[in-house]
């Protein structure tokens, strides 16, 4: 089966610019996650969708980050405006419904903010 797809793989922008990341989950996976992984740290959940709805976005900096999942499939994560501390790998993962199900991760997008 095809895995989780993400694009772009790498992005370099200057601070105060905007950037968007795209994720296509595994077909049939109801739950989609966006994580931020800063160098030397574990993935930090930014937002979790279940189908179209948001389950948890408590750690999403809503003044600059936004995410949507149209039609319960693809998702985009946007940062506007970017700050230096946003430099990280942004991971998308998907899973079947339910907490006991494993998450399948995409390759990530490495963002560098200069």
């Amino acid at each position, binding site marked *: 089966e095809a895995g989780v797809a993400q694009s772009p793989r790498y992005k370099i922008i200057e601070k105060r610019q905007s950037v968007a990341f795209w994720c296509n989950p595994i077909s049939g996976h109801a739950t989609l996650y966006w994580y931020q992984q800063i160098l030397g740290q574990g993935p930090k959940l930014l937002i979790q969708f279940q189908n179209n709805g948001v389950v*948890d976005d408590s750690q999403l900096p809503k003044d600059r980050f936004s995410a949507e999942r149209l039609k319960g499939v693809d998702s985009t994560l946007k940062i506007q405006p970017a700050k230096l501390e946003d430099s990280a790998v942004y991971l998308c993962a998907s899973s079947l419904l339910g907490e*006991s199900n494993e998450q399948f991760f995409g390759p990530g997008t490495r963002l560098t903010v200069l």
Partner: protein
Amino acid sequence: AQSVSQHNHHVILSEAASLELGCNYSYGGTVNLFWYVQYPGQHLQLLLKYFSGDPLVKGIKGFEAEFIKSKFSFNLRKPSVQWSDTAEYFCAVAGGFKTIFGAGTRLFVKA
């Protein structure tokens, strides 16, 4: 608040040595526990998981982990590591619709 602690950030072992990576969590409710691995240049992938039943779970590539509820621990073990086990290992805890990852342990196995 939910939290996950991995005790070692870097571990260096020789081939055939035994491995134990510690993971402790804090959460008052029912949890599902995972170990994920990221090999160099690859995606994060599941190594093993626990959600109920036998607290000793076996995963891929000879790894196992034991859930000790009284200690809030889910330590990862392997009796004899190989050079190909060089990777970063993450413990993750899912509870209350929230998944928290530990900071990771970077394992380097010397050939």
